[in-house]
Structure formats: structure tokens, C-alpha cells
């Protein structure tokens, strides 16, 4: 079969190899629902434990694992992926694109997500998985839970951040570069708009999580002391985790707000109220979200003035949300509301989110948080926002786009039954938790007087969980037996409804263009043009599988890891060498990146995430250093000469790389090869010098776990060294291609993209050298 033809939906091959955004959307959807069942089943288990004050259904060890994995799975493997299931399917349709900018990378994000989830599930069967709460508080997670499964689960989270980063880059480039003619940023439907804001937040939040996980894994495996020493410890983790964690709340929520906004317009038959104010409010929230993390730390003894500042930012963030929600409600005035299932879920979600938002203001007040911290009030609040606002909002989206995805209508009656059961179950489950605010979180046993509230919650939990069975049945049954939906069953305005249900592989017949506020379709000139594009590749799957095998080997048998590494290398080579054709649309709106081609934009986006990764590592260094009164003077522990020589080597290597690119442009094969070779030699020299430096330190008894000083030195320079190593591997590949005559005159862009990375790694060293060696 030709790689540009998609096999039929009934073949397994189609689903393993597809790179089509709609297929990937379906894969995300099914996987997210699978994890919803996993996370939900865990929660029902501990709701059973809590049905009585002193049961022993789940002993404490099992209980702690259940709540931890429930939290992690729901936040990272259910709600966000569900949003990206919809985004995968809908965003290209809403902007009039044929696919995402990088279809193979899109498949890669999905498979990395799936295999990351599998690692987390596998960790259950390795003695004990993560049992420290989804917030992974320290030093409990670093030093007090010595089980292999904890490592596996942690590595699973690390792999997930890779998936998220890849998908972030893809959506940024797609939304900026693949819009149909006339679709200016201001004309984006709300859902696509919220996805854009979401990926921008993800770009800065997830590398912080990755940095935290790298430090945590290093503490657990290599014996560094970031979180087990008092200079770093609990507070350092709190800063890193919540710098990620609070934006994560909005990352989870924003796509749901976008879904709800689109649905409100469709079913109320009125334009959105204050669209521009909603967007402004969302931009404010996205920015402020990186400035509120301290409210998770009011009691940790951070400086009183800093606490006050965080109170102001936290309570202030409720104002833009006010504007958003009130605009949603004002949209309804003088409207004509069709109360179909998606609209019902949207209205339910808004009502629930109002309660979640108001109770969030309680927690933003330090003086109340002093008392409510660590209690069921917090549990109730974030379920009202994340389960009620985000998950229920996204469920509305699943119903809304189901006819588009399948070409069939679901049963409206069953949809309404699901809605009623879900609302009753949800409120019965979570509202009593506000009233049980005296009860500590994460305890398997509790005081007698709290029994009635907990029993209500348990009953509610089973109703809420059970309501989803109605949905699953409805969606599965309607797949075959639903009424044919037609192109636009909801009479909705956005572009995805102007094509067939389900849309053809190339999405639209003809090129959509927005002219004078209305979409028209330009004649499909060169209809044969995109049929040459590739839609199948085995490498995303193989690469992700190999990554999982490598990580799994680390916690089982190292031989498995080595095997995995071979597979990984083969997959990366296969990926790089595959002739995969996907064209950027020839016409379109690309502001503000008209002059930045998609690869360049992708590299810039990737490097932005790398800046955060190193930013967190260096901030951690500055933090622990300021907490350590007896930091050794420069030159006493780390040899300045080693550092200076390496600085010289790396800067020179940047220079030789620039010369290689110049030679490639001028068409000099010898020059290209020579300067690439010189860059390679310098990179190797850097690593050899570093090896010498490290062995010298080891021989003087300075190792990973000696002190916080050695910990921060080895890990920061180690992560940098790993980047140099990755760069050298890429360079080796480039040289092997250049030997066969590549990059002369044509294709020098590839060298330039590599150059961005290499120069970036050098610049990082320019920060590391003075910070660690000179001051």
C-alpha cells in the first residue's frame, strides 16, 4: 500500500501507522477515556474505603497509591489529553488546514503519551507505585519511599513531558503558520484560540515539571541531595512544582472554556458577548498564572511580604475569570436556547465552575488558607474547577463534535440521562466535601462525626461514575445505529461544520478562505497536489515504544535498557531518513511569522522550552546557594581552568559551526565537511575535558551525594553535558549525510537548525561557567 493512502479504519495497521490528525484525535480520545476509567476506578476504590470512618478495604499503603495515581492520571493523562483529542480533531478543521504542521510529530506525541501512561500503569506491579500524593511533596518522595515502582511512575511522568513538548511545538507552529487565507488570529474560533493560549502556557510550565522530575529522579537513583538536604528540600520542590502546577490548572481549564464558548454560540443563536474582553481576560490569566504559585505555600514560612503579594495576585486572578464567566452568561440574553446535550453539559459546567471559582477566592486569602489548607475544602474546590469546570466542559465537547467525527447522531435521550445523573452525582460527591472542611486530605480513616458527609460523597461518586457508563453505551451504540448526522446538525457557524461528517482525509474539497467575513471555497486547483503527501509512518510508534523500553529497563534489568537503546537509535535513524512528504499550505495567514518557516519556528519554540528547563535548574542552584551559608569560595572545589578551557572549546565550536554553514551555502563540500568535523572534534574535546574534571573530583571523594554543592554542580553540568552529547550524535548523523554529498548549496537550512541548538547549548554554558566556577 502506498504511504499516502490511508488503510481502511478496520485495519490495525491504519491505527499504528497513521499520522492523520483526525485519526490521532480519535486515538487520543479513546486512550483518554481508558485512563478516565482507570482513574475513576481508583477513586471508587478509595470512596469505598471512606464509606465508613474505620474500614480497612484499602490499607494505608494501597490507599496512598490509589489517591496518588488517581490524581496524576486524572490531571495529566485524562483531562489534558481529552482536550488535545478534541484539539487534534478540530483545530485543523477550524483554521482550514489539511493537517497539523508536523503530522509525524503529532503521532509521536500520541504514542509517547500512551507509553508514558503504560509505564505508570506498570509501576503498580513493581512492589509499590508513587504513594506520595500527586504533588510529590519532598523530602517524602525523594528519600522516604524506596520502592522501584515509584521510579517507574516518575519516569512515566518524564516521558509524558516529552509528549507534551512535542505536541506544544506542533500546535504553536500549526496555529501560526497553517491558517487558511483570511483566517487572521482575531478570526479564530474560541476553541482554537484557547488551545493556542494553552500550548503557550504548556511551553513554559512543563519544562519546569521536567526539571523537577530530573532532579527528583537523580536524588532517588544517583543519590544527589536536592530534596533530601535542608538547603533544598521541601521548599525548593514547592517552588518548582507549583511554578508548573498552577499554570497547569489553567492548562487543563482553558480548552474547556473554549469548547463551552463555541457551544454557547451555537445553541443560543447569538454571537459571543464580549469576545474581545474574554480574550483579553484569558491573556491576563495566562500571564498571571505564572505569578500565583506561592499561594500553595502560604504556610511554609516564606517571607510575609511575598505571601501578601501572592494573595493579591491570586485573588486578583479571579477578576478576569469573572469577566469570562459573566460574558458567557450575558451571551444568553435575548437568545434562543436549544437545550441539547452539549448545551446542557456546558450550562452545568458553568454553574459548577462558578462554585469552584468562588471557593478559590477563600483559599487565596492567606488567613483562611491557614485553616483550610490540607483539608477536604481544597479537595472540593479543585474538583469543582478541574472535574466540574474542565472535565464536564470537555464532555460537552465530546458530545458536540461526536456527529462530526462519526457522521452519526447519539441518542439525545441518553445524553440527557447522562447529564442529569452526572449533575446529581457530581454535586452529591463533591459538595459534602466543602462541609467536611475539618477533615484532612489523603487519610484512609477519619473522625466519627464526618461519616454522614463521607457516605453522601461515596454514594455520589458511584452515581457520577455510573453516569459515564450511559455515555459510553450511547456513543458506542450510536456509532452504528445513530441517525446520519449530516454536515451541520447543530446549525453551527464555525468552519469544521462546512465539510462532510466525518470529513474526508484532506478535510475540505477546495481551499477554504475567509473573504468579507464569510468562508468560501476556492477551486481545488491541483487536487492531485496533496495526494502525494505521506500519511503513514511506523517510526513514531517505534520511537515511543523504544523510549518506554529504555526507561522500563532502568527500573528492571539494565540489559532491557540496552536493547531499548538499540531500538531507539534505529527508530531515530528511521525517522530521520524516511521520505515523509507534508506540504505547508501555499496560501494562508501567518502573522506574525510570515518570514519564519515552519521548521525554524519549531526550533525556536523548542528552544523556548529548553530555556525554561535550564532556567529552573539554574534558579534551583541560586536558591540552594543562597540557603547555604558555607558555600566554598571560587577555585577551591571546582577547578577554574577546566571550566575556562571548556568555555573556550565550546565558543570555538560555535564559530566552526558558523563557518560550516557558510561553506555549505557557498557550495564548498570540503569546507562543510571540514568545519563540521572541527565542530565535532571540539565537542568531543569538551566532553573529554569534562570527563577528566569529573574523575578528578570523584578521586578526591567529591561525588553526587557529598553535599548540595556537589549535587547542583554535577546535575546542572550533567544535564548540559547530556545536551552536548545529544548534539554530537546529531552532528555525527549530519556528517554522515554530508559525506554522501548533502547540504552543499541545497539543504543548508538543516545545518542552520542544528546551529540554533548548538549555539543555545553554548549560551547555557556561558551562564554555567561564571555561576559555578567564578563567583
Amino acid at each position, binding site marked *: 500500500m502506498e504511504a499516502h493512502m490511508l488503510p481502511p479504519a478496520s485495519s490495525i495497521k491504519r491505527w499504528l501507522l497513521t499520522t492523520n490528525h483526525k485519526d490521532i484525535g480519535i486515538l487520543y480520545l479513546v486512550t483518554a477515556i481508558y485512563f478516565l476509567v482507570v482513574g475513576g476506578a481508583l477513586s471508587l476504590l478509595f470512596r469505598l474505603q471512606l464509606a465508613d470512618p474505620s474500614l480497612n478495604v484499602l490499607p*494505608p499503603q494501597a490507599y*496512598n497509591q490509589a489517591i496518588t495515581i488517581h490524581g496524576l492520571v486524572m490531571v495529566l493523562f485524562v483531562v489534558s489529553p481529552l482536550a488535545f483529542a478534541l484539539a487534534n480533531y478540530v483545530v485543523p478543521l477550524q483554521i482550514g488546514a489539511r493537517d497539523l504542521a508536523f503530522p509525524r510529530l503529532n503521532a509521536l506525541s500520541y504514542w509517547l503519551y500512551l507509553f508514558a501512561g503504560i509505564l505508570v500503569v506498570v509501576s503498580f506491579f513493581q512492589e509499590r507505585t508513587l504513594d*506520595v*500524593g500527586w504533588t510529590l*511533596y*519532598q*523530602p*517524602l518522595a525523594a528519600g*522516604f519511599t524506596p520502592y522501584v515502582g515509584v521510579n517507574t511512575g516518575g519516569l512515566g511522568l518524564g516521558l509524558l513531558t516529552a509528549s507534551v513538548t512535542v505536541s506544544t511545538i506542533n500546535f504553536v507552529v500549526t496555529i501560526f503558520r497553517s491558517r487558511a487565507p483570511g483566517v487572521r488570529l482575531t*478570526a*479564530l*474560533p*474560541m476553541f482554537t484560540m484557547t488551545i493556542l493560549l494553552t500550548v503557550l502556557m504548556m511551553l513554559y510550565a512543563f519544562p519546569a515539571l521536567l526539571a523537577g522530575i530530573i532532579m527528583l529522579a537523580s536524588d532517588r537513583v544517583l543519590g544527589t541531595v536536592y530534596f533530601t538536604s535542608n538547603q533544598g528540600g521541601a521548599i525548593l520542590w514547592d517552588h518548582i512544582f507549583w511554578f508548573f502546577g498552577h499554570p497547569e490548572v489553567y492548562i487543563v481549564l482553558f480548552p474547556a472554556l473554549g469548547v463551552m464558548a463555541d457551544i454557547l*454560540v451555537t445553541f443560543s*443563536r*447569538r*454571537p459571543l*458577548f*464580549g*469576545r*474581545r474582553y474574554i480574550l483579553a481576560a484569558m491573556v491576563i490569566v495566562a500571564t498571571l498564572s505564572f505569578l500565583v504559585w506561592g499561594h500553595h505555600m502560604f*504556610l*511554609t*514560612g516564606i517571607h510575609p511580604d511575598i505571601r*501578601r503579594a501572592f*494573595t493579591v495576585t491570586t485573588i486578583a486572578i*479571579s*477578576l478576569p475569570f*469573572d469577566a469570562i464567566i*459573566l460574558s458567557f452568561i*450575558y451571551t*444568553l*440574553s*435575548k*437568545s*434562543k*436556547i436549544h437545550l441539547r446535550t452539549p448545551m446542557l453539559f456546558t450550562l452545568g459546567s*458553568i*454553574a459548577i465552575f*462558578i462554585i469552584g471559582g*468562588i*471557593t478559590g*477566592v*477563600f483559599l487565596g*486569602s*492567606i*488567613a*483562611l488558607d*491557614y*485553616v483550610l*489548607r*490540607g*483539608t477536604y475544602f481544597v479537595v472540593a474546590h479543585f474538583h469543582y474547577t478541574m472535574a466540574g469546570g474542565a472535565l464536564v466542559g470537555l464532555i460537552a465537547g465530546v458530545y458536540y463534535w461526536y456527529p462530526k467525527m462519526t457522521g452519526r447522531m447519539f441518542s439525545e435521550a441518553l445524553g440527557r440521562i447522562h447529564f442529569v445523573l452526572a449533575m446529581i452525582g457530581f454535586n452529591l460527591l463533591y459538595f459534602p466535601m466543602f462541609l467536611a472542611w475539618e477533615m*484532612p486530605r489523603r487519610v484512609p480513616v477519619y473522625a466519627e462525626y464526618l461519616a454522614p458527609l463521607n457516605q453522601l460523597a461515596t454514594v455520589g461518586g458511584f452515581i457520577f461514575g455510573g453516569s459515564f457508563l450511559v455515555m459510553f453505551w450511547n456513543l458506542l451504540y450510536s456509532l452504528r445505529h445513530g441517525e446520519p448526522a449530516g454536515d451541520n446538525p447543530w446549525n453551527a*457557524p464555525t*468552519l469544521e461544520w*462546512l465539510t462532510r461528517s466525518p470529513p474526508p482525509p484532506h478535510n475540505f474539497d477546495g481551499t477554504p478562505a475567509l473573504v468579507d*467575513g*464569510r*468562508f468560501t471555497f476556492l477551486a481545488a486547483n491541483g487536487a492531485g497536489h496533496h495526494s502525494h503527501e505521506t500519511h503513514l509512518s511506523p517510526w513514531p510508534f517505534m520511537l515511543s515504544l523504544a523510549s518506554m523500553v529504555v526507561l522500563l529497563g532502568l527500573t528492571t534489568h539494565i540489559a532491557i535498557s540496552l536493547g531499548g537503546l538499540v531500538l531507539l537509535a534505529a527508530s531515530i535513524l528511521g525517522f530521520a531518513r524516511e521520505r515523509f512528504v507534508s506540504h505547508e499550505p501555499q496560501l494562508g495567514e501567518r502573522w506574525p511569522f510570515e518570514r519564519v518557516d515552519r521548521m525554524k519556528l519549531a526550533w525556536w519554540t523548542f528552544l523556548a522550552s529548553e530555556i525554561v528547563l535550564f532556567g529552573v535548574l539554574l534558579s534551583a542552584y541560586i536558591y540552594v546557594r543562597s540557603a547555604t551559608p558555607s558555600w566554598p569560595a571560587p577555585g577551591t572545589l571546582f577547578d577554574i581552568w577546566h571550566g575556562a578551557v571548556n568555555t573556550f572549546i565550546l565558543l570555538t565550536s560555535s564559530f566552526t559551526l558558523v563557518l560550516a554553514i557558510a561553506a555549505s551555502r557557498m557550495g564548498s563540500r570540503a569546507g562543510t565537511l571540514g568545519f563540521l568535523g572541527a565542530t565535532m572534534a571540539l565537542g568531543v574535546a569538551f566532553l573529554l575535558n569534562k570527563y577528566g574534571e569529573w574523575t578528578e573530583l570523584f578521586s578526591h571523594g567529591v561525588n553526587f551525594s557529598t553535599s548540595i554543592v556537589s549535587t547542583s554542580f554535577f546535575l546542572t553540568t550533567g544535564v548540559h553535558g547530556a545536551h552536548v552529547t545529544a548534539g554530537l550524535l546529531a552532528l555525527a548523523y549530519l556528517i554522515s549525510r554530508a559525506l554522501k554529498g548533502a547540504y552543499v548549496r541545497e539543504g543548508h537550512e538543516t545545518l542552520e537548525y542544528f546551529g540554533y541548538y548548538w549555539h543555545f547549548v553554548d549560551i547555557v554554558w556561558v551562564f554555567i561557567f561564571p555561576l559555578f566556577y567564578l563567583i
Partner: protein
Amino acid sequence: MVASTVEVFNTLWTLFSSLGILVGVVVISYLGYQVYRNRARPERPEPEDAPKPGEAPREQARAGKLLISVILSASIVITLISMTFISLGILDNPPQEAFEVKVVAFQWGWRFYYPNGYEAVGELRVPKGVPVKFYVTSSDVFHNMGIIELRLKIDAIPGKVNVGWTRVDALGEYIIRCYELCGDGHGVMTGRLIVMEPEEFNEWYSSLQVS
């Protein structure tokens, strides 16, 4: 009132919950009212500006309505922040004269150190009506010392000493619980705070054999 911290909490809690419930009820009722009033009935005409398929997004922009609502919310929020800061003035400024106790949390229990050097595990005795200052830390992982009836919570973090205070005005026994997940024993990590008449307390305190 049972304790000074309870007074501070109750004031704020009453203010936040009454405003919270008021705002919640008003907004959700307004939402319900709009949905009810504008529900699709056959005789109801399609709105004039109804979005049509294939149309670029438009908006209803009447900033006035939104501005007024946001100003209203802002005034509520500013009230809440100010009240919070006033309460903090009390919570963050313990009186100079106080009975001082050092608390060390561990997996899974509480160790108390009295000013005279006496040490006890699981049970802390303090005099009624006297400000008590807690210096809280941990010897292993992150815990949180919470005496929920007294509306008092202090993080117990290894390598850090956090300070909190209260004045208990009612005799009795209060349960100390851990409010931060700290391992398998988290749910049963309890201790007791016993509040005694000052004379009785002094008698007990001076009879202690300190090694």
C-alpha cells in the same frame, strides 16, 4: 470563643461565606433565569444577529454591562483582601509574652519540648488563657500540625522552624492531626493538646522531673 485563632477565623469565614453564598446564588440564579426565559419555544423568533454557518466570529460588545459587573466584583475582592490583611496583622504577630513550646514532627507522631527542657511524645499540656507560641519543625518529612478545633495550622518542614500562636480560652482536650501526606501512618498521626487551669498547670509543670 474557644481560642484567639478561632475568633480571627470566624470573622473572616463569616464574611467570605456570606459574600460567597450571596454571589454564588445571585449569579447561578441569573444563569438559570436567562436559560429559562430564553429557552427555545416554537413561537420565539430567531435572534436577528444569529450566527450563520460559515461566518467569521462576531461579538456582542456592550462593555458597559461587563465593566459594571467587574467593578462590582473588584470592590468585593478588595474588601476581602483588606480584611485578610487585617487578620494577618493578628495571626503573624504573636504577643511578646507567651508560653513557648517547640514541636518536632516525625513519622508518625509529635514530640514536644517545654521551656524547662521537659520532653513529651504525643501529649502537650498548656495553660488556659495564656498565649502559646509553637516553634514547629520536622525530623524527617513534610508534616503539618493542625488543631482544627482551634483553627490553627503550622507546617512542619525539616530544616525550617515555623511559628504559630494561639490563646485557648476553654478547658479541654483537642486533637492534633497531620494535614500533609507523610507516608503510611499519615491518617493516624495524632496527638493531644490538653488545656488546663493555670494553677493546675503550674503545679504540674513545676513538679516535672527534668533530667
